[in-house]
């Protein structure tokens, strides 16, 4: 069976790739396009390590077929920093040590950014519920949640 030719936009860049009809977007990101920031944890939509946005909406790239994304806009963790300048969430995660092994971190950051774009002033409860689909086996979540709340406060005062 011939491969499918898909034209899409990834982190603002027009992008083309070839894929099999049953290939996941995560597989294409990592293994065809070399964008290995999105991680494969479970491959079944439970852990959130592969989180991307598709037309601005947070989703697990393991649950998206690459064939589906033609004409749509994808953002991945690779697009989060602007050159050498980290996103405030990335900077705060470093400052507050909101990560240990780092496997879940790209997904957590993508999810946290999506939350703050929608709700710049979330409560701790709202952060915890929003991030419930991002599993971390190291930190116990407290540092992650505190870093998200602290970033939100800083971004509000800077705005």
């Amino acid at each position: 069976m011939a491969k499918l030719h898909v034209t899409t936009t990834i982190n603002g860049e027009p992008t083309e790739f070839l894929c099999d009809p049953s290939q996941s977007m995560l597989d294409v990101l990592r293994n065809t396009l070399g964008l290995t920031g999105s991680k494969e944890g479970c491959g079944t939509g439970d852990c959130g390590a592969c989180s991307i946005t598709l037309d601005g909406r947070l989703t697990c790239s393991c649950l998206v077929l690459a064939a589906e994304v033609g004409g749509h806009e994808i953002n991945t963790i690779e697009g989060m920093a602007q050159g050498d300048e980290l996103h405030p969430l990335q900077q705060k995660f470093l400052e507050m040590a909101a990560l240990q092994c780092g496997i879940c971190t790209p997904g957590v950051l993508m999810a946290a950014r999506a939350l703050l774009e929608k709700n710049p002033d979330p409560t701790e409860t709202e952060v915890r519920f929003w991030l419930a689909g991002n599993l971390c086996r190291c930190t116990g979540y407290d540092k992650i949640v505190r870093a998200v709340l602290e970033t939100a406060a800083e971004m509000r005062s800077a705005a």
Partner: protein
Amino acid sequence: MTDIRYLAPPTLDEAVSAFAAAQGAARILAGGTDLLVQMRNGMARPGTIIDIKKIPEMTSVTESADGGFWVGAAVSGAALAEHPRFGKVWPGVLEAINLIGSTQVQGRASPGGNLCHGSPAADSVPAMVAAGAVVTIAGPNGRRTMPVEAFPAGPGRTNLAAGEILVGFTLPARPAGSGDAYLRMIPRTEMDIAVVGVGVSLTMAGGVVAAARVGLGAAAPTVLLVPDAARALVGSKLDDAALNAAAAACSAACKPIDDKRGTIVYRTKVAAVLLKRAAAIAADRAQGKA
């Protein structure tokens, strides 16, 4: 590596033709949160994947002039939550749909997929049953409709005939003084499957229940409409006697299984508790108190 075909037809007619032509070897793709998992673990090996998200009718939420709603089968939970009106008119249906999975899953998963998956524990279904939703189905012989409670046939099975596709849900116009609610019991606070779920929709007039519908999930091989529970509520002021009678009817309707999530005894008891609590929330919403 694979001989799967991927199609994304722009019209329902083309989707129905392609689905029928595949003679059972095709699977419909909406949000993919069930299908891609099944493909990965080998439970599904479709010859053709038919993505319905390019069909406007299946991805739209529209409010009709009389106040009814159309919800396309492939509308995501996140899209429904962003609709300016839907959650105001049907807060119980929306909260049920938004309980399914994580934020990431909400970005893709649809009430149509939740219904077609056929799980007795599907969170959106008891709320849709309580709402009196009617589903539209399209197939080689045209369109037909059925009440949502007639759609499930058993665990993992539906009453779709060969070649038929779920198109969407019609929710009826809402009389003034109406409210709905959905509650599920889970041992955690998030990201879990219902041990029992109860949806209640009420219309109140002068503090008295004028109309009621009750949907019960995870307590039988299919989600159930519980007319006896509704009858016990209608005409009452939701006093203890009426609530106890409705709760008893809800328990009596239970035909659950014993499994790792709950025992028969536990599910039967919890169904009664959830009925009372959901009815109280629905009544508050109906009377503008919540």
